[in-house]
């Protein structure tokens, strides 16, 4: 059994704004499960506008190609390593920006 996380998984949100259009990726959010993800998506991305259709999918369920043929997935500095949050030693005392 995996430990229950106190942080929820990331979901990607796709919205069909009106009939005749494709679902389009609008952003992402966190939710404990699919059903709550759908509710949160309605609240956040459509303000519960009726007549729109929403898809939510767990971000880690998406398989993606890279945008061009030189697939950086296989490059030395590919993106895999960045999946580990510990990779980021963010400076502790950032004065501004």
């Amino acid at each position: 059994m995996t430990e229950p996380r106190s942080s929820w998984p990331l979901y990607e949100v796709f919205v069909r704004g009106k009939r005749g259009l494709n679902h389009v990726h609008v952003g992402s959010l966190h939710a404990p499960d699919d059903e709550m993800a759908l509710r949160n998506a309605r609240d956040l991305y459509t303000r519960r506008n009726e007549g729109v259709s929403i898809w939510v999918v767990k971000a880690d369920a998406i398989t993606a190609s890279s945008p061009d043929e030189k697939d950086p997935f296989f490059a030395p500095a590919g993106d895999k390593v960045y999946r580990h949050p510990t990779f980021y030693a963010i400076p502790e005392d950032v004065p501004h920006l």
Partner: protein
Amino acid sequence: MDLEREFERVVAADHRIEPRDWMPDGYRKTLIRQIAQHAHSEIIGMQPEGNWISRAPSLRRKAILLAKVQDEAGHGLYLYAATETLGADREDLTTKLIEGRQKYSSIFNYPTLTFADVGVIGWLVDGAAICNQVPLCRTSYGPYARAMIRVCKEESFHQRQGYELLMTMMRGTDAQKAMVQDAVNRWWWPSLMMFGPPDAESSNTEQSMVWRIKRHTNDELRQRFVDMSVPQAEKLGVTLPDPKIAWNAERGHHDFGDIDWDEFWQVVKGDGPCNAERIENRRKAHEDGAWVREAAAAYAAKKERVA
């Protein structure tokens, strides 16, 4: 290296870098730091105005303010999501915020003392934020730029409602007019500080301009904000608390007085009027909610096992 040249070519051509593209470590780190600070600012920024939702003096103002503060939660969400496309983790960033290891905009460490502050925050603070943020709609990192488009659209409603509240109050009683002027006096200089230190002292500006994360310098944006605000103040009938403000025909801009950078650094370093309180509130909300987040995650895990 091919990948680096390709990155530079895309950025120089004003195209967007997308999450799975190769990017220099520095670019990724700078973005995570900047977007996280921006997200933290939205979330901490809910507090100074959120304090007044319960006391808003008309039901219309109550609804507007609640919707506005709700928007800020949404903006924080969009921005945290943008950091996650770079491999960051919201929980981790929240921990860094409440442990004081990451900053947020210093403006939210000033107190909101009267309801007029709600209007002045909308007009000046959101106005300054818009000056900072509109150029970011064209920033080189795609998910950040797209989040900013959404944020900017909503911010413009925020600024509008703030200015409208002030115009309404300036048509009201003498006590109301005095409240507005007092709030302008307190928020004007901190608003100018929102653009960050002068260009000469801004260590991150140059590289961020090359990477097109930033599109204008701090001083350029500050000048734009002053030029925007002066006629708005006149129209409103308030005096900006800086006797040196004057039109300079030669420059085609307004001159203005010197900013108290000692105060700026004091607040940045954590000794502003409300730093401790803002962080403590955020920490408490996050910790008080832990059992709820755990419960929902545990429920989902049980359902998955059954399925």
